[in-house]
């Protein structure tokens, strides 16, 4: 195999530096003992280390409430998305029926409709039916934007396996239910789990659509952080961000160990 020359490696280091810079700065600033958002001084010694801003988060009930709210929202919507996607994927992959292609396009359409547009569209609908600020409808709106991710992974898992195994089970006398439970489901389980996690993360991080449809009672963590950052900037924002980075890193490692992150994010081969 060909090797990278020194120029390529220098370029690569610059790109990696660029990618990591904002994340590293957040993690450094989060540990500041100062009152204000003091920048780490370049070329000067460190001016202390403190966990006070992490403690400050827990003294802000609105942040912790938003965190639990986001966690519940992401868990519920990812689970509903899976419950909708698995049967839909089975039908799309296994059956011939009129409108199959258009349905598939409809289910994947939230990927190409800007979240901003979906946000205002949901806001209009919710205002008309009197559901503004309702948590169940917030869950429903999240289900719409994350279902495509699950559907794509489940479809890929379905198309990637040997159909004759199912035929064999049927021939040997298993009913369709048993075939699904004992043969199909275990084989597509990695696709389902990967899809659930990807959906969870996307729901947990979603900002642009949610900012239109959350009410003060249902504010999600990204919306809370966005509002906070547009008004005041203090080291607590860095501490919250550092926690989010840590959580994401853990989720990423789990995903990577279990499925291979490149397979989930890059696509299936």
């Amino acid at each position: 195999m060909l090797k990278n020359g020194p120029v390529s490696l220098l370029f690569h280091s610059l790109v990696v530096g660029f990618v990591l810079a904002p994340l590293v700065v957040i993690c450094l600033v989060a540990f500041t003992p100062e009152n204000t958002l003091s920048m780490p001084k370049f070329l000067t010694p460190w001016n202390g280390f403190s966990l006070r801003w992490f403690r400050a988060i827990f003294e802000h009930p609105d942040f912790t409430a938003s965190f639990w709210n986001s966690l519940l929202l992401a868990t519920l919507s990812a689970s509903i998305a899976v419950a909708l996607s698995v049967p839909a994927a089975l039908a799309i992959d296994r059956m011939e029926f009129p409108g199959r292609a258009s349905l598939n396009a409809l289910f994947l359409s939230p990927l190409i409709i800007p979240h901003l547009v979906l946000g205002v569209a949901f806001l209009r609908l919710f205002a008309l039916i009197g559901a503004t600020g309702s948590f169940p409808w917030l869950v429903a709106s999240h289900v719409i934007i994350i279902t495509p991710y699950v559907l794509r992974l489940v479809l890929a898992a379905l198309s990637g396996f040997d159909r004759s195994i199912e035929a064999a089970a049927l021939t040997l006398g298993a009913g369709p239910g048993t075939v699904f439970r004992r043969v199909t489901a275990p084989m597509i389980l990695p696709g389902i789990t990967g899809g659930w996690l990807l959906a969870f993360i996307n729901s947990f991080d979603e900002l642009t659509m949610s900012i239109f449809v959350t009410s003060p009672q249902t504010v999600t963590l990204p919306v809370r952080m966005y509002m906070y950052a547009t008004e005041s900037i203090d080291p607590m924002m860095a501490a919250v961000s550092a926690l989010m980075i840590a959580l994401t890193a853990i989720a990423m490692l789990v995903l990577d160990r279990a499925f291979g992150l490149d397979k989930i994010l890059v696509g299936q081969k």
Partner: protein
Amino acid sequence: MNRRVTPWPLVGPATLMFFGLVVVPLTLTVILSFHGYNHTTGIENRFTLTHYQAILSDSYFLGIFWRTLRIAALTTVICAAIGVPEAYVLARMRDPWRSVFLLVIIGPLLVSVVVRAFGWSMLLGSTGLVNQAFMAVGLPTTRLLYTETAIVIALVHVMLPFMVIPVWTSLQKLDPAVEAAALTLGASPFTTLRRIVLPQVTMGMLSGSLIVFGLSASAFAIPGLLGGRRLKMAATLVYDEYMHELNWPLGATIAILVLVANLVIMLAYNHAVEARMRRTMG
């Protein structure tokens, strides 16, 4: 296989949900954009084209649309200029480095955009690390935060994985032996790059560019946090119309225009790419 079985018990719930929460709200929003608006009485129940006329003739709105297009195009070009060579460098690495750095490059995709925007606002602020570095080498400090430059830098950071991923995928299909063969047969490294690698990478780069452009043109958090109140892009404009001006019909009109522009550009681009494919194949 199950030709006799009806699909509706399986696809029914999802169809119902997507019809009710994609088709219906979008239709309602299109209708809303034709409603009148009065600052004292609110949304009026009459048909009007005023919002479309206002937006397409007002230099304030046109300026914001123009800025949005310019920033999205610039972000796309820079992402391609960084992402394509980076994907190539990654593809030439060996494991474990290859997997580690692939994770480093595409992993930030999973970190909330708000977090990444906040990180850049600290780097680019007047006392941020970038300005400290400028001072250290004797350059004057520059105002970076709340400029288009800041928006483009942060957008490139957020969009880079969307360029690296498709290019990486198309490079995976390139047998390294072909490259080695070209070199053995006397082609210079430059010729090999141009004649063997580049054609393979082009499709990935084109689809990556489409994603990056579409997402940048409708980006919200980055211009919201790094552009300040005055430097608006399409998405932050819609947000202001909805949340501060409370002029929903006008906001809906802008949102619909963003959607239509997005779809038109996407279809035209796909069409052009397919035509190009056919030319190169045939």
